[in-house]
């Protein structure tokens, strides 16, 4: 927070049917809001793999926003219930890692709630600004240094390796 | 049941009959009232006309004192006090700049306010906390045959009150019916009595009072019941002037708490009924006491 110009970085996962459409509606309605969120479109919030969230934080996001249809309104019936369940488990894990609850947020925003896209993003930026940078990549380096004997140049985490070349891990 | 109690200036002055009837009625129902320590004027409408921030600060001092007194709801029987305290509470919550000014001023007096004091009107407390069933049990002398026009006035139910409808409130209707009175259909129940304009611009203010009196009479009421000291004063004190100006419109106006007290078997003297300009006719079959 020492830098007043610091801008929190938010990676947002929006479902195609409700929240992505709501963000489009916010656009059509010219509802001005903070530019910090970068939206990745998925068909359903149920597609959000907890790994996506961890990966985003590990790569330097200060917060992650997941947007889906309201419970009971999922285009696919109940994908968002699955999201909710996973989200709750993930949040416990994140708490253990010392990552504040406000950094990973799950919001139900229906296709008609353009206004809510605006308020949620503005609100989240506000909260993240108060929390300050997460700076996980830097922190991870610090942790690694603590964990590994000082000499080894191979001290870089395996995890980081994996993420630098995603296709290597999955192909 | 225990509440902090904010009497307000009027209940110590022109409207003392309100307090004189409210306290015994509440006691009779087992409701304990603790008068707020060193309360100050709520600011009423006049203060907001001069300085909005100071009006908020003034009212907030009372809220802060109430918060210090303990986790109790704050009862404000005067409708102006009720409105101003509620409005201040809302404004502090809704507008950061007002909150900032209030907190600065309170801090200067070593007071704090975190927004946790519900401000309640006696009508709300009687109907929703005490309950009509409990009240019914206490009625020993039902107000049989007494036709009452329930008059809430403007500020009791507008615009921050949530316990009743702003246009067609019914809490007082129900209380009076429980006390055995016959409640007259009185669609003017939330019309303005003229407020302080009866004194400052009588031409306008008193005409509003006149319409209320005239309609209450036309609809067959024996008495008007009110919940506001200023309404009671306006409806009670100016009937001579009004009759001279617009024609006869004579009817007594009393506090609803006075009527409840009568139904509980308390004496008219105990309830401050002798303070009326236009006296209320004795109840039928009233036992000779004094």
């Amino acid at each position, binding site marked *: 927070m020492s830098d007043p110009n610091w801008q929190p*970085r938010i990676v947002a996962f929006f479902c195609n049917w409700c929240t992505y459409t709501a963000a*489009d509606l916010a656009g059509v309605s010219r509802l001005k809001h903070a*530019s910090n969120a970068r*939206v990745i479109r998925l068909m359903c919030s149920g597609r959000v793999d907890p790994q996506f969230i961890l990966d985003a934080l590990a790569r330097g996001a200060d917060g992650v926003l997941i947007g889906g249809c309201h419970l009971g309104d999922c285009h696919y019936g109940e994908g968002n219930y699955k999201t909710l369940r996973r989200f709750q488990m993930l949040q416990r894990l994140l708490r253990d890692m010392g990552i504040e609850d406000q950094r990973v947020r799950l919001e139900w925003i229906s296709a008609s709630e353009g206004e809510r896209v605006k308020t949620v993003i503005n609100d989240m930026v506000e909260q993240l600004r108060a929390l300050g940078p997460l700076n996980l990549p830097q922190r991870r380096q610090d942790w690694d240094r603590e964990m590994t004997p000082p000499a080894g140049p191979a001290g870089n985490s395996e995890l980081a390796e994996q993420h630098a070349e995603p296709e290597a891990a999955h192909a | 049941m225990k509440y902090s109690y904010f009497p307000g200036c009027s209940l110590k002055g022109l409207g003392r009959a309100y307090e004189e009837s409210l306290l015994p009625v509440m006691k009779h129902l087992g409701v304990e009232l603790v008068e707020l320590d060193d309360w100050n004027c709520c600011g009423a409408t006049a203060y907001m006309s001069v300085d909005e921030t100071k009006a908020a600060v003034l009212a907030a001092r009372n809220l802060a004192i109430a918060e210090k007194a303990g986790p109790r709801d704050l009862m404000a029987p005067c409708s102006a006090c009720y409105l101003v305290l509620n409005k201040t509470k809302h404004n502090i919550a809704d507008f950061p700049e007002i909150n900032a000014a209030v907190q600065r001023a309170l801090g200067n007096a070593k007071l704090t306010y975190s927004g946790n004091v519900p401000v309640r009107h006696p009508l709300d407390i009687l109907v929703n906390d005490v309950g009509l069933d409990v009240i019914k049990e206490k009625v020993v002398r039902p107000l049989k045959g007494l036709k009452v026009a329930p008059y809430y006035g403007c500020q009791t139910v507008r615009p921050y009150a949530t316990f009743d409808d702003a246009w067609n409130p019914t809490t007082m209707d129900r209380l009076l019916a429980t006390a055995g009175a016959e409640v007259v259909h009185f669609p*003017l129940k939330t019309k303005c009595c003229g407020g302080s304009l009866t004194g400052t611009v009588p031409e306008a203010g008193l005409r509003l009072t006149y319409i209320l009196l005239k309609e209450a009479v036309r609809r067959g009421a024996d008495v008007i019941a009110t919940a506001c000291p200023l309404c009671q004063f306006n409806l009670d004190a100016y009937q001579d002037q009004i009759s001279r100006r617009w024609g006869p419109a004579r009817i007594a106006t009393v506090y609803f708490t006075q009527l409840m007290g009568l139904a509980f078997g308390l004496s008219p003297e105990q309830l401050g009924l002798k303070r009326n300009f236009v006296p209320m006719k004795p109840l039928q079959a009233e036992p000779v006491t004094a």
Partner: protein
Amino acid sequence: MNTNHKNGKVRIGFYVCHCGHNIAGMVDCPAVAQYIAKLPGVVVSRDYKYMCSDPGQELIQQDIREHQLNRVVVASCSPLLHEHTFRNAVTAGGLNPFYFQMVNIREHDSWVHTDREEATAKAKSLAHAAICRVRFHRALETTRVPIHPDVLVVGGGITGIHAALTLGNAGKKVFLVERDPSIGGHMAQFDKTFPTLDCAACILTPKMSAVRSHENITLWSYSEVVKVSGYVGNYTVTVKRKPRYVNEDLCVGCLECIQACIFKEGKFPDEFNVGLSKRKPIYIPFPQAVPPVVVIDPDRCLQVRTGKCKKTCLEACADRKAIDFTQKEELVEIKVGNIIVATGFKLFDAKRIPQYGYGLYPNVVTAIELERLVNSSGPTAGEIVLRDGRPPKSVGMILCVGSRDMKTNRWCSRTCCMHSMKLAQLVREHTEADVTVFYMDIRAPGKGCEEFYDKSLKEGIQFVRGRVAEVTDWALAPEEEGKLVIRVEDTLAGFVRRIPVDMIVLATGMEPQADAQDVRRLFNMSCGTEGWFLEKHPKLAPVSTFTDGVFIAGCCQGPKDIPDSIAQAGAAAAEAMALIDKGHIEQEPNTAYIVEADCSGCKSCIPLCPYTAIAFDEAKQKAQINEALCKGCGTCVASCPSGSIRQNLFEDEEIFSEIEGVLAYV
């Protein structure tokens, strides 16, 4: 980075669209193009005024040919708008359409931000993500799903009737499901219609009869849809048929049973006459009802309620044996390819505005009540009278009751101005009364409507511009004695007026149906914040919803008059026919698939699938996905512990690279 992919070296073409000033006004497009040009694999990077225009698309095709592009990224508007356009352009350039990725820098960027620098930075990072992602794209084929040719129309008002007839006339089989005992809806209650003043029954009744006799239309009145499953082209719908205790096929509508009912007089409020008259437990909704058969109200009929009645109706029906107290509720399952929802609106409850005294003063009526009074088959046989039978000498009409009011409904109900003027003219025609219309703004934009306003003015109808504050019954002047007094600021004259009248007519607005939320869930639609069903696009797809094969028409989408409702009914019918006549739909190939080698056979994915598309192959001990059933939500993909489930178009590496991309540029 991986540049050598399956189809050789990745060669990306990037295009950023100015969209006139829409994007270029807030985003520095050339700067975005320059930034992207430096990324690995990018062969061409351009900015252009309108990418969706023919020359814009031509540009892509030319570059594909000249620069041997095998990936294309366009940064412009929302993919929900133009993804299709650009996929086609890519196909025309000779490339598989799924080698394309779109970046939304208009709705999500230039339109919602105010700082040019920030907006440009965001555009760069979003474009960067797409460049990262598109490397992993593979050639995919769309699958075709056949369309069931039958259509379900829900709601038998004028909209549903018109949609059903249009489809039926085109040779499509239609199921028309109506909740009430008769079709006809609100329009059947009207006396005349604006602005032509033609008789509502005269134009509606023939259409209602046509539905009844149409060979392609199955009419199920007194029925409700209770369950919908499946997807476009293949919906399975369960319809609940409520017992009317009268066999529709046997009843001939002679009404002798009604005569014979042990209730000698009507005793219960008649729904069709909005409570202005009474009906018996056995009744026909209105003379022209379709189907023209009686119905027994189970809550009122002695026999249904207690089983102890002389059943005089049965005797009257005699050997036609149409009355059948053994009828039970039935659930019927049908298969359709498309659904048109035309469930209409409900009228605002005037009691919610106590200031106007509806329910308190007997001579305060609603517009629909007056409509029934004017109608010659209504409760007063067409006489406009006060409750005491006298004709009114003066009538006040209050507009916008429950409309344009943030305390009740904020929208304009669109028809009340015209509806009230029509009623005003009818009152003038039927009585000697003076009519005053109290309005905020007269909205008469429809064809012939301004002329109708002019006619109203010329006929001597008074117009006072001001929203009525209150209706009271106390007099302050001699002429007010015994009257209802309207208090209003005449905003054009500039003072407050008190206007005494005999009768007050409230133009109550339109509201979404009370169960709109349930219906929306049933058909997997969205509602706007106001509760109206949400169209897919407010301009370009007004009768489509976000669920393919489900269309909306008429007032369930928002207030509208009869011509507009009919137009939407036709549009929805045409949309359904377009799908039916094509015979199949192309499905987005975003289905999930299993990499069998990785599957551990844990079965945790199986219960997750809402479409039961995942089965377990006992022999192989592996999960199996039926691609024809998969809708591509990706829920199973995210929850597979071994990572063996993958999703076309949304592969893990595609998403990871997108995350990397958006965070690459600050």
